[in-house]
């Protein structure tokens, strides 16, 4: 994962739950991923539905499923990416259309 990220990456997680907000820098993003793995007991699965990209930007639509504290989640998550000249991610947005389901899962 680290190899894909620019040092000063800005990472936006949408919604109103404890993990939503902005993360800046590689270490902050990796910490975010560690929290996601820890809180879901490694049950979270991501299945890419569609991937869109050109030289500067990308979009990923994926099906996200998982369990946490007796709760389950099954939503479509959209991600937007901005790349630098080396193809590393410099900015990232993530938001589900049915955000209430995500907020309830993490809340």
């Amino acid at each position, binding site marked *: 994962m680290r190899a894909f990220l620019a040092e000063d990456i800005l990472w*936006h997680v*949408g919604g109103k739950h404890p993990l939503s907000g902005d993360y800046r820098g590689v270490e902050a993003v990796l910490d975010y991923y560690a929290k996601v793995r820890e809180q879901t007991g490694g049950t979270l699965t991501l299945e890419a539905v*569609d991937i869109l990209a*050109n030289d500067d*930007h990308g979009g990923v*639509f994926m099906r996200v499923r998982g369990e946490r504290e007796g709760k389950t989640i099954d939503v479509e998550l959209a991600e937007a990416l901005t790349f630098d000249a080396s193809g590393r991610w410099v*900015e990232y947005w*993530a938001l589900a*259309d049915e955000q*209430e389901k995500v907020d309830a899962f993490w809340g």
Partner: protein
Amino acid sequence: MSTTATDHPNAQRMREVTEAVTAGNVAVALERFSPDLVWYVPAGSSLERVYRGRDGLQRFFGTLIQRSNGTLRPRAEDVVASEDHVVIFLRITAQRDDVDLNVRVAHFAAVGPDGLTRNWFLPDDMEAWNRFFS
């Protein structure tokens, strides 16, 4: 899964929406959407969370235009699209009294046979967005 093209017809469709809204021609923008469209607004805003149908979207655009005193300017910085999805990267500016809005927005859309269906978006500065449209 599909490969994308910046000049895909669905990318052009989304650019046309942006240009029409910038020109204040909401009726033209609405034609690019499915009659059954759903438009999700990110949480934390004073705006309604979900707008449905072209009437609903017209109400959403009308609210933004009204609260920005007609200064709302979405500008497409880039678009990537496939047969089923679009992501557009927007710079959105607006002014109201002495308050300026200047945010980058990632807007996501699913595409059906009769136009853009599910839509949702996330500004890079959610607090600035909420302050302006509160």
